[in-house]
Protein backbone atom coordinates (compact mmCIF):
# COMPACT_ATOMS: atom_id res chain seq x y z
CA UNK A 1 0.00 0.00 0.00
CA UNK A 2 1.35 3.41 -0.90
CA UNK A 3 2.00 5.55 2.18
CA UNK A 4 1.00 9.15 1.71
CA UNK A 5 3.27 11.64 3.43
CA UNK A 6 1.86 14.26 5.80
CA UNK A 7 2.44 16.92 3.14
CA UNK A 8 0.41 15.01 0.59
CA UNK A 9 -2.32 14.44 3.18
CA UNK A 10 -2.62 18.23 3.42
CA UNK A 11 -2.99 18.36 -0.35
CA UNK A 12 -5.82 15.84 -0.23
CA UNK A 13 -7.71 18.11 2.17
CA UNK A 14 -7.63 21.14 -0.13
CA UNK A 15 -11.01 22.74 -0.54
CA UNK A 16 -12.71 21.95 -3.87
CA UNK A 17 -12.65 25.34 -5.56
CA UNK A 18 -11.30 26.58 -8.89
CA UNK A 19 -8.48 28.70 -7.53
CA UNK A 20 -5.04 27.29 -8.06
CA UNK A 21 -1.40 28.30 -8.28
CA UNK A 22 1.35 27.06 -10.55
CA UNK A 23 4.15 25.25 -8.83
CA UNK A 24 7.18 27.35 -8.12
CA UNK A 25 5.45 30.67 -8.78
CA UNK A 26 2.85 30.73 -6.03
CA UNK A 27 3.39 33.14 -3.20
CA UNK A 28 4.52 31.30 -0.07
CA UNK A 29 2.43 32.44 2.91
CA UNK A 30 4.99 31.19 5.43
CA UNK A 31 7.61 33.42 3.87
CA UNK A 32 5.22 36.34 4.34
CA UNK A 33 4.67 35.54 8.05
CA UNK A 34 0.91 35.48 7.57
CA UNK A 35 -0.82 33.79 10.50
CA UNK A 36 -1.91 30.16 10.20
CA UNK A 37 -5.58 30.92 9.61
CA UNK A 38 -4.81 33.24 6.71
CA UNK A 39 -2.48 30.69 5.05
CA UNK A 40 -5.34 28.15 4.80
CA UNK A 41 -7.23 30.60 2.60
CA UNK A 42 -4.46 30.97 0.05
CA UNK A 43 -4.45 28.96 -3.16
CA UNK A 44 -3.30 25.35 -3.17
CA UNK A 45 0.37 25.00 -4.07
CA UNK A 46 1.46 21.85 -5.92
CA UNK A 47 4.44 19.89 -4.64
CA UNK A 48 7.46 20.52 -6.83
CA UNK A 49 8.77 23.72 -8.42
CA UNK A 50 9.04 23.82 -12.21
CA UNK A 51 12.60 23.78 -13.46
CA UNK A 52 12.43 27.02 -15.47
CA UNK A 53 10.07 29.66 -16.82
CA UNK A 54 9.60 31.19 -20.24
CA UNK A 55 7.86 34.57 -20.22
CA UNK A 56 6.60 35.64 -23.63
CA UNK A 57 7.51 39.04 -25.04
CA UNK A 58 5.83 38.27 -28.37
CA UNK A 59 3.60 35.39 -29.43
CA UNK A 60 2.06 34.43 -32.77
CA UNK A 61 -0.31 31.67 -33.79
CA UNK A 62 0.37 30.36 -37.24
CA UNK A 63 -0.45 27.63 -39.68
CA UNK A 64 1.95 25.97 -42.07
CA UNK A 65 1.46 26.93 -45.72
CA UNK A 66 4.48 25.35 -47.38
CA UNK A 67 7.29 22.96 -46.42
CA UNK A 68 10.77 23.06 -47.95
CA UNK A 69 13.83 20.92 -47.35
CA UNK A 70 15.19 22.90 -44.42
CA UNK A 71 12.46 25.41 -43.68
CA UNK A 72 8.72 25.93 -43.69
CA UNK A 73 6.51 28.92 -44.44
CA UNK A 74 3.57 30.00 -42.34
CA UNK A 75 0.85 32.62 -42.03
CA UNK A 76 0.89 34.28 -38.63
CA UNK A 77 -1.66 35.95 -36.36
CA UNK A 78 -0.28 38.28 -33.67
CA UNK A 79 -1.65 36.86 -30.41
CA UNK A 80 0.16 39.46 -28.28
CA UNK A 81 -1.74 42.27 -30.00
CA UNK A 82 -5.02 40.33 -29.78
CA UNK A 83 -5.37 39.94 -33.55
CA UNK A 84 -8.14 37.63 -34.81
CA UNK A 85 -6.75 36.96 -38.29
CA UNK A 86 -3.42 36.36 -40.02
CA UNK A 87 -1.56 39.49 -41.02
CA UNK A 88 2.03 38.31 -41.37
CA UNK A 89 4.07 35.63 -43.08
CA UNK A 90 7.28 34.02 -41.93
CA UNK A 91 9.78 31.33 -42.85
CA UNK A 92 11.13 29.23 -39.98
CA UNK A 93 13.88 26.63 -39.81
CA UNK A 94 12.97 22.95 -39.43
CA UNK A 95 16.18 22.50 -37.44
CA UNK A 96 14.65 24.68 -34.70
CA UNK A 97 11.92 22.10 -34.09
CA UNK A 98 12.07 19.22 -31.62
CA UNK A 99 11.98 15.69 -33.04
CA UNK A 100 8.32 15.30 -31.96
CA UNK A 101 7.34 18.59 -33.59
CA UNK A 102 9.10 17.64 -36.84
CA UNK A 103 6.73 14.67 -37.00
CA UNK A 104 3.78 17.03 -36.50
CA UNK A 105 4.97 19.36 -39.27
CA UNK A 106 2.47 19.27 -42.14
CA UNK A 107 0.69 21.78 -44.34
CA UNK A 108 -2.18 23.22 -42.30
CA UNK A 109 -0.66 22.34 -38.92
CA UNK A 110 -1.29 25.01 -36.30
CA UNK A 111 1.49 26.20 -34.02
CA UNK A 112 2.49 28.88 -31.55
CA UNK A 113 5.73 30.79 -32.00
CA UNK A 114 6.99 32.47 -28.85
CA UNK A 115 9.86 34.88 -28.34
CA UNK A 116 10.58 35.55 -24.70
CA UNK A 117 12.86 35.44 -21.72
CA UNK A 118 13.76 32.05 -20.32
CA UNK A 119 14.84 31.97 -16.70
CA UNK A 120 16.64 28.91 -15.39
CA UNK A 121 18.47 28.72 -12.06
CA UNK A 122 18.74 32.50 -11.91
CA UNK A 123 20.10 32.85 -15.44
CA UNK A 124 18.06 34.68 -18.05
CA UNK A 125 18.28 34.55 -21.83
CA UNK A 126 16.14 35.48 -24.81
CA UNK A 127 14.81 32.46 -26.68
CA UNK A 128 12.54 31.55 -29.55
CA UNK A 129 10.28 28.51 -29.31
CA UNK A 130 7.81 26.79 -31.62
CA UNK A 131 5.04 24.55 -30.23
CA UNK A 132 2.70 22.59 -32.48
CA UNK A 133 -0.80 22.58 -31.01
CA UNK A 134 -2.52 19.29 -30.30
CA UNK A 135 -6.25 19.95 -30.19
CA UNK A 136 -9.24 17.68 -30.68
CA UNK A 137 -11.20 18.02 -33.88
CA UNK A 138 -14.07 19.99 -32.32
CA UNK A 139 -16.32 19.33 -35.31
CA UNK A 140 -15.99 15.59 -34.64
CA UNK A 141 -16.56 16.12 -30.91
CA UNK A 142 -19.68 18.17 -31.64
CA UNK A 143 -20.91 15.54 -34.10
CA UNK A 144 -20.47 12.83 -31.49
CA UNK A 145 -22.35 14.91 -28.91
CA UNK A 146 -25.24 15.61 -31.28
CA UNK A 147 -25.42 11.94 -32.20
CA UNK A 148 -25.54 10.95 -28.53
CA UNK A 149 -28.33 13.45 -27.80
CA UNK A 150 -30.26 12.18 -30.81
CA UNK A 151 -29.97 8.59 -29.53
CA UNK A 152 -31.17 9.68 -26.08
CA UNK A 153 -34.14 11.53 -27.58
CA UNK A 154 -35.13 8.55 -29.72
CA UNK A 155 -34.87 6.29 -26.67
CA UNK A 156 -37.04 8.61 -24.60
CA UNK A 157 -39.66 8.59 -27.37
CA UNK A 158 -39.55 4.79 -27.52
CA UNK A 159 -38.39 4.83 -31.12
CA UNK A 160 -35.27 2.62 -30.66
Amino acid sequence: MLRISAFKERQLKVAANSEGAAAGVANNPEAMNIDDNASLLLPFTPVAPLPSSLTAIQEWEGYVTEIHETSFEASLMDVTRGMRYETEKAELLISDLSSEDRERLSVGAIFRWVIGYQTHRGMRQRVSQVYFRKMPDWSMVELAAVSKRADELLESLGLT
Partner: protein
Amino acid sequence: MTVELEISAVTIVLVGEFNPKIFHPSWFELQGVMSASEAASVDVKVVHPDLTQIEFGNLLITAERQRFSIATSSAPLVATIDLVAQVFGRLLTHTPIHQAGINTQRHYRLSSMEQRHEFGRKIAPLSVWGKWGERMNDKELDKESQNGVQVLAMREFYRDAPWAGWRQVKVEPSTVVAHNLGVFIDKNHHIYQEPPVKERLAAPDLVQYMSKCFDDVIADSTWIENELFKATDVF
Protein backbone atom coordinates in the same frame (compact mmCIF):
# COMPACT_ATOMS: atom_id res chain seq x y z
CA MET B 1 8.71 51.45 -17.92
CA THR B 2 9.21 50.98 -14.20
CA VAL B 3 7.56 47.58 -13.88
CA GLU B 4 8.76 44.36 -15.44
CA LEU B 5 6.99 41.02 -15.73
CA GLU B 6 9.32 38.44 -14.20
CA ILE B 7 7.20 35.27 -14.23
CA SER B 8 3.90 34.54 -15.94
CA ALA B 9 2.10 31.30 -15.20
CA VAL B 10 -1.30 29.73 -15.74
CA THR B 11 -3.18 27.01 -13.89
CA ILE B 12 -6.32 25.38 -15.23
CA VAL B 13 -8.45 23.83 -12.49
CA LEU B 14 -11.41 21.52 -13.01
CA VAL B 15 -13.73 20.61 -10.15
CA GLY B 16 -15.74 17.42 -10.58
CA GLU B 17 -15.25 13.67 -10.22
CA PHE B 18 -11.99 12.14 -11.37
CA ASN B 19 -10.07 8.91 -11.14
CA PRO B 20 -6.52 10.01 -10.32
CA LYS B 21 -4.78 6.69 -10.88
CA ILE B 22 -5.52 6.55 -14.59
CA PHE B 23 -3.38 9.65 -15.33
CA HIS B 24 -0.22 7.62 -15.73
CA PRO B 25 2.16 8.39 -18.63
CA SER B 26 1.35 5.00 -20.16
CA TRP B 27 -2.32 6.00 -20.40
CA PHE B 28 -1.43 9.30 -22.10
CA GLU B 29 0.76 7.41 -24.58
CA LEU B 30 -1.90 4.78 -25.24
CA GLN B 31 -4.46 7.49 -25.98
CA GLY B 32 -2.14 9.36 -28.34
CA VAL B 33 -1.77 12.43 -26.12
CA MET B 34 1.96 11.77 -25.69
CA SER B 35 4.48 10.08 -27.93
CA ALA B 36 6.50 7.14 -26.59
CA SER B 37 9.55 9.31 -26.02
CA GLU B 38 7.47 12.00 -24.31
CA ALA B 39 5.86 9.42 -22.01
CA ALA B 40 9.29 8.02 -21.16
CA SER B 41 10.50 11.48 -20.13
CA VAL B 42 7.62 12.14 -17.71
CA ASP B 43 8.62 12.62 -14.08
CA VAL B 44 6.10 10.64 -12.05
CA LYS B 45 5.80 12.14 -8.55
CA VAL B 46 3.00 9.90 -7.33
CA VAL B 47 0.27 7.70 -8.81
CA HIS B 48 -2.36 6.66 -6.28
CA PRO B 49 -6.16 6.19 -6.26
CA ASP B 50 -6.48 9.51 -4.35
CA LEU B 51 -3.67 11.56 -5.87
CA THR B 52 -1.58 11.56 -9.01
CA GLN B 53 1.03 14.13 -9.88
CA ILE B 54 3.27 14.03 -12.93
CA GLU B 55 5.55 16.52 -14.62
CA PHE B 56 5.47 16.44 -18.42
CA GLY B 57 7.93 18.87 -19.98
CA ASN B 58 6.89 22.24 -18.55
CA LEU B 59 3.47 21.00 -17.46
CA LEU B 60 2.61 19.95 -13.92
CA ILE B 61 -0.49 17.75 -13.83
CA THR B 62 -2.21 17.02 -10.52
CA ALA B 63 -5.30 14.86 -10.20
CA GLU B 64 -7.34 14.33 -7.05
CA ARG B 65 -10.75 12.71 -6.74
CA GLN B 66 -12.56 16.06 -6.95
CA ARG B 67 -9.99 18.29 -8.58
CA PHE B 68 -7.81 18.19 -11.67
CA SER B 69 -5.24 20.85 -12.42
CA ILE B 70 -2.56 21.55 -14.96
CA ALA B 71 -0.04 24.33 -14.55
CA THR B 72 2.87 25.86 -16.40
CA SER B 73 5.11 28.89 -16.12
CA SER B 74 6.49 28.48 -19.65
CA ALA B 75 4.99 30.02 -22.76
CA PRO B 76 3.08 29.18 -24.81
CA LEU B 77 0.50 28.84 -22.05
CA VAL B 78 -2.02 27.27 -24.49
CA ALA B 79 -0.22 23.95 -23.99
CA THR B 80 -2.31 23.60 -20.81
CA ILE B 81 -5.73 24.03 -22.43
CA ASP B 82 -4.65 21.85 -25.37
CA LEU B 83 -3.98 18.93 -23.02
CA VAL B 84 -7.23 19.53 -21.10
CA ALA B 85 -9.09 19.60 -24.42
CA GLN B 86 -7.52 16.31 -25.51
CA VAL B 87 -8.26 14.55 -22.21
CA PHE B 88 -11.76 15.84 -21.38
CA GLY B 89 -12.93 17.02 -24.80
CA ARG B 90 -11.96 13.93 -26.79
CA LEU B 91 -11.20 11.05 -24.39
CA LEU B 92 -12.90 11.25 -20.97
CA THR B 93 -16.00 12.97 -22.29
CA HIS B 94 -18.32 11.56 -19.61
CA THR B 95 -16.33 13.04 -16.73
CA PRO B 96 -18.64 15.10 -14.49
CA ILE B 97 -17.13 18.58 -14.32
CA HIS B 98 -19.08 21.14 -12.29
CA GLN B 99 -16.81 24.16 -12.27
CA ALA B 100 -13.57 25.30 -13.81
CA GLY B 101 -11.00 28.04 -13.48
CA ILE B 102 -8.39 29.54 -15.77
CA ASN B 103 -6.02 31.23 -13.36
CA THR B 104 -3.03 33.42 -14.06
CA GLN B 105 -0.24 34.09 -11.63
CA ARG B 106 2.25 36.89 -12.37
CA HIS B 107 5.20 38.24 -10.47
CA TYR B 108 6.18 41.78 -11.37
CA ARG B 109 9.37 43.60 -10.42
CA LEU B 110 9.08 47.29 -9.60
CA SER B 111 12.03 49.63 -9.82
CA SER B 112 12.45 50.29 -6.12
CA MET B 113 11.18 49.33 -2.69
CA GLU B 114 9.85 52.87 -2.32
CA GLN B 115 7.84 52.47 -5.51
CA ARG B 116 6.33 49.24 -4.27
CA HIS B 117 5.55 50.85 -0.94
CA GLU B 118 3.82 53.73 -2.74
CA PHE B 119 1.87 51.25 -4.88
CA GLY B 120 0.61 49.53 -1.74
CA ARG B 121 -0.45 52.87 -0.24
CA LYS B 122 -2.43 53.75 -3.37
CA ILE B 123 -4.37 50.49 -3.63
CA ALA B 124 -5.09 50.42 0.11
CA PRO B 125 -4.81 53.91 1.58
CA LEU B 126 -4.04 54.06 5.29
CA SER B 127 -6.26 57.14 5.63
CA VAL B 128 -9.42 54.99 5.64
CA TRP B 129 -8.22 53.16 8.73
CA GLY B 130 -8.43 56.16 11.09
CA LYS B 131 -6.05 56.18 14.03
CA TRP B 132 -4.88 52.68 13.28
CA GLY B 133 -3.87 53.88 9.84
CA GLU B 134 -2.01 56.77 11.44
CA ARG B 135 -0.16 54.36 13.67
CA MET B 136 0.79 52.13 10.72
CA ASN B 137 2.01 55.21 8.93
CA ASP B 138 4.47 55.95 11.70
CA LYS B 139 7.66 56.30 9.69
CA GLU B 140 9.89 54.95 12.44
CA LEU B 141 7.91 51.71 12.66
CA ASP B 142 7.18 51.41 8.95
CA LYS B 143 10.82 51.65 7.96
CA GLU B 144 11.49 48.04 8.92
CA SER B 145 8.16 46.34 9.26
CA GLN B 146 6.33 46.74 5.91
CA ASN B 147 3.11 47.98 7.45
CA GLY B 148 0.05 48.15 5.22
CA VAL B 149 -1.76 45.98 2.70
CA GLN B 150 -0.85 42.28 2.68
CA VAL B 151 -3.59 40.95 0.39
CA LEU B 152 -6.22 42.85 -1.64
CA ALA B 153 -8.90 41.03 -3.66
CA MET B 154 -11.48 42.37 -6.12
CA ARG B 155 -14.21 40.35 -7.83
CA GLU B 156 -16.32 41.07 -10.94
CA PHE B 157 -19.18 38.78 -11.95
CA TYR B 158 -19.97 37.99 -15.57
CA ARG B 159 -22.50 36.07 -17.61
CA ASP B 160 -21.88 34.43 -21.00
CA ALA B 161 -24.85 32.07 -21.39
CA PRO B 162 -24.95 29.18 -20.78
CA TRP B 163 -21.90 29.97 -18.65
CA ALA B 164 -21.37 32.41 -15.80
CA GLY B 165 -18.71 33.13 -13.25
CA TRP B 166 -16.37 35.79 -11.97
CA ARG B 167 -12.99 37.35 -12.35
CA GLN B 168 -11.24 37.65 -9.00
CA VAL B 169 -7.93 39.48 -8.81
CA LYS B 170 -5.73 39.26 -5.76
CA VAL B 171 -2.74 41.54 -5.24
CA GLU B 172 -0.03 40.97 -2.66
CA PRO B 173 3.69 41.44 -2.16
CA SER B 174 5.73 38.92 -4.13
CA THR B 175 7.81 36.42 -2.19
CA VAL B 176 9.58 35.29 -5.38
CA VAL B 177 11.01 38.64 -6.53
CA ALA B 178 13.88 39.50 -4.20
CA HIS B 179 14.64 42.65 -2.19
CA ASN B 180 10.96 43.54 -1.57
CA LEU B 181 10.63 44.79 -5.13
CA GLY B 182 7.88 42.44 -6.30
CA VAL B 183 4.13 42.47 -6.66
CA PHE B 184 2.23 39.21 -7.15
CA ILE B 185 -1.09 39.31 -9.02
CA ASP B 186 -3.26 36.22 -9.00
CA LYS B 187 -6.39 36.18 -11.18
CA ASN B 188 -9.02 33.49 -10.90
CA HIS B 189 -11.35 33.30 -13.91
CA HIS B 190 -14.10 31.08 -12.56
CA ILE B 191 -16.60 29.30 -14.82
CA TYR B 192 -19.77 27.38 -13.99
CA GLN B 193 -23.03 26.54 -15.73
CA GLU B 194 -25.49 29.39 -15.28
CA PRO B 195 -28.34 28.45 -12.95
CA PRO B 196 -30.96 27.17 -13.03
CA VAL B 197 -29.27 24.04 -14.32
CA LYS B 198 -31.98 21.88 -15.86
CA GLU B 199 -29.59 19.64 -17.76
CA ARG B 200 -25.89 19.49 -16.89
CA LEU B 201 -23.79 20.23 -19.98
CA ALA B 202 -21.12 17.66 -20.79
CA ALA B 203 -17.38 17.99 -20.25
CA PRO B 204 -16.66 18.63 -23.96
CA ASP B 205 -19.04 21.62 -23.93
CA LEU B 206 -17.20 23.25 -21.03
CA VAL B 207 -13.76 22.40 -22.36
CA GLN B 208 -14.59 23.70 -25.84
CA TYR B 209 -15.78 26.97 -24.27
CA MET B 210 -12.57 27.18 -22.26
CA SER B 211 -10.50 26.55 -25.39
CA LYS B 212 -12.26 29.32 -27.26
CA CYS B 213 -11.95 31.90 -24.48
CA PHE B 214 -8.48 30.92 -23.23
CA ASP B 215 -6.50 33.59 -25.11
CA ASP B 216 -9.07 36.23 -24.15
CA VAL B 217 -8.79 35.25 -20.47
CA ILE B 218 -5.00 35.57 -20.59
CA ALA B 219 -5.25 38.93 -22.39
CA ASP B 220 -7.83 40.04 -19.83
CA SER B 221 -5.31 39.43 -17.03
CA THR B 222 -2.78 41.62 -18.83
CA TRP B 223 -5.35 44.35 -19.38
CA ILE B 224 -6.46 44.43 -15.73
CA GLU B 225 -2.86 44.51 -14.51
CA ASN B 226 -1.95 47.30 -16.94
CA GLU B 227 -4.99 49.30 -15.80
CA LEU B 228 -3.91 48.85 -12.19
CA PHE B 229 -0.34 49.95 -12.85
CA LYS B 230 -1.50 52.93 -14.93
CA ALA B 231 -3.97 54.08 -12.28
CA THR B 232 -1.34 53.84 -9.54
CA ASP B 233 1.32 55.62 -11.64
CA VAL B 234 3.63 52.62 -11.65
CA PHE B 235 3.95 52.89 -15.43
